[in-house]
């Protein structure tokens, strides 16, 4: 919607991944432009989450490459091979890639504020005062300005996920990855999290969202990607993919979830 002018921010090419003998990704190509929102849908086991985790190298790839803003992620080219980077270098790259988990994974022994400032302090080595000021602004943005001293346990699932989003934003990432951000939430809490993600989309944040919320995809996505059995079956603007799917498998999936 907003960032049609942006260059390619995320560039996934020919990615393969197998768990043991089970192939999970079988040649995935995906380009996401800066400022655009890509929503990935598909049945469970189709490889959506693995693709997302491959993008920030939480999963190693068997073949293929991921570039973010032109930088190869997790590997470096050395002649005819891709060498895996040392953990320290991968960690540095991840500072540019925000990741929001299905189960939030907030640090339960740290307060909300401490959760948000942890990565800016340790990863970016920001001064504490800067990090705190930024964290407060982010918490305000996700509507939790008054909860900074609480521990995650005292928050509802929706509030926890909003803190997790603020925590990911604190690194000012080039791209935000959401792995089924509302699947662990009670139905009445889904809206508040999707609302925050929608605001981010309007602000021009580059995002890839794996979700089952078709309504959200329709409203927010610039591109909807349908995956099945480790491959991208089709992709395009929401009306094309959701309303006039060309592939039988897409139609079958949509008829089940809608």
């Amino acid at each position: 919607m907003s960032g049609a002018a942006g260059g390619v921010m995320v560039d996934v090419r020919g990615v393969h991944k197998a768990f043991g003998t089970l192939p999970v990704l079988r040649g995935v190509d995906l380009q996401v432009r800066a400022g655009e929102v890509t929503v990935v849908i598909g049945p469970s086991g189709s490889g959506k989450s693995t693709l997302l985790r491959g993008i920030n190298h939480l999963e190693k790839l068997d073949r293929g490459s991921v570039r973010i803003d032109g930088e190869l992620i997790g590997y470096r080219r050395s002649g005819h091979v891709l060498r895996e980077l040392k953990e320290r270098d991968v960690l540095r790259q991840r500072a540019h890639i925000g990741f929001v988990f299905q189960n939030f994974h907030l640090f339960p022994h740290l307060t909300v504020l401490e959760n948000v400032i942890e990565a800016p302090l340790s990863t970016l080595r920001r001064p504490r005062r800067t990090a705190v000021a930024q964290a407060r602004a982010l918490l305000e943005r996700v509507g939790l300005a008054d909860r900074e001293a609480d521990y995650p346990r005292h928050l509802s699932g929706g509030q926890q996920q909003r803190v997790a989003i603020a925590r990911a934003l604190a690194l000012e990432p080039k791209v935000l990855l959401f792995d089924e951000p509302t699947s662990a939430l009670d139905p009445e809490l889904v809206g508040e999290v999707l609302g925050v993600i929608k605001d981010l989309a309007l602000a021009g944040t580059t995002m890839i969202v794996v979700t089952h919320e078709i309504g959200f995809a329709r409203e927010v996505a610039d591109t909807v990607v349908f995956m099945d059995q480790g491959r991208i079956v089709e992709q395009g603007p929401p009306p094309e993919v959701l309303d006039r799917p060309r592939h039988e498998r897409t139609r079958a999936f949509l008829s089940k979830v809608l």
Partner: protein
Amino acid sequence: MTSEADRGGAPPGSPGEGAAPSAVAAPPPAPAPAAPGPPDGPRERQGRLAPDDEVSGLRIVPARHYGRWLAGAAILVLVAQFVNGLVTNPAWDWPVFFDYLLADSVLRAVWVTVQLTVYGTLLGFALGVVLGLMRLSRSYVLRSVAWAYVWAFRSIPLIVQLLFWFNLAYLYRELGFGIPFGPVLWRVGTMDLIGAMTAAVIGLALHQAAYAAEIVRGGVLAVDAGQREAAAALGIPRVRQWRRIVLPQAMRGILPNAANEIISLFKGTSIVSVMAIGELFYQVQVVYGRNGRVVPLLMVATVWYIVLTTVLTVAQYYVERRFARGATSHAPQSPARRLRKVAGDLRAGAARRRGRLPGERGTEPAAGGAR
């Protein structure tokens, strides 16, 4: 399907293309009318079952537990008998006990025991943390070596191990430090380097490390794998992931077991008496060997062991409380506050009974009294 669309807040057909005829864009609001139906049912039924207001206005009397009171009384009688025996039986020889409880030789021995415990704990847990993390390592060699260490030192009784260390000079007359398989740079006689006390500390620490390693490993395994993954996704450096994210959470599992281990190490120092080191148990044996007053001197040792274990237990309580942050809905109350609360409850209960006030503030007076 309606809920799906509602959550996203997607007004059907908000983008221009929505005008395209489509089955999915405009879901019929079929389930909506069904919703208000069921709630009417229970409300009606409630109305029919409404109790007469006489009953709902009555005072509530908590259940009385006569059996519990009886059992409590019986046990108190037994305790009283035991205490009476301690005081009146002359065989306990309390005057001798008090002569020796704070005697210089005993205090020195207590100090040796404390030192053995502190050094054994510090070295044992330092090595144990390393071994525990080695067992969790991705390197096969590190994992195997740590496993073998734990296997070996858990298999050897502490007393046997201590005697080996005590006799180290018999095995190796001198120790050399240098390049492995290469030249030796510095030599020292085993007896000079490792005296009895050092041997005892080494023995206790190595023994302790095997158990500490398992405790640390268990604690770390109990932390959700998602925690490290989240830390990794945030790019937090590896050492900091451990120090700031994993270990503080692992501590909750580690602490109770570690406290157990420290206390058993503390009492285990009595085994060191076989090496003729003047710790507490060895010292009282020496004294009763001289004067023949076995029972009061054993009581001296017993009381010191109890006192120091109590100190450790209290310390454990407060350390655990510190690491419970964020884990419970409310910070556990300190014992002092809890005592005050019980006293307050008792007073309130008594006042309520005296004034025959309705027990609107909970149903505890009887339970409070039994506590």
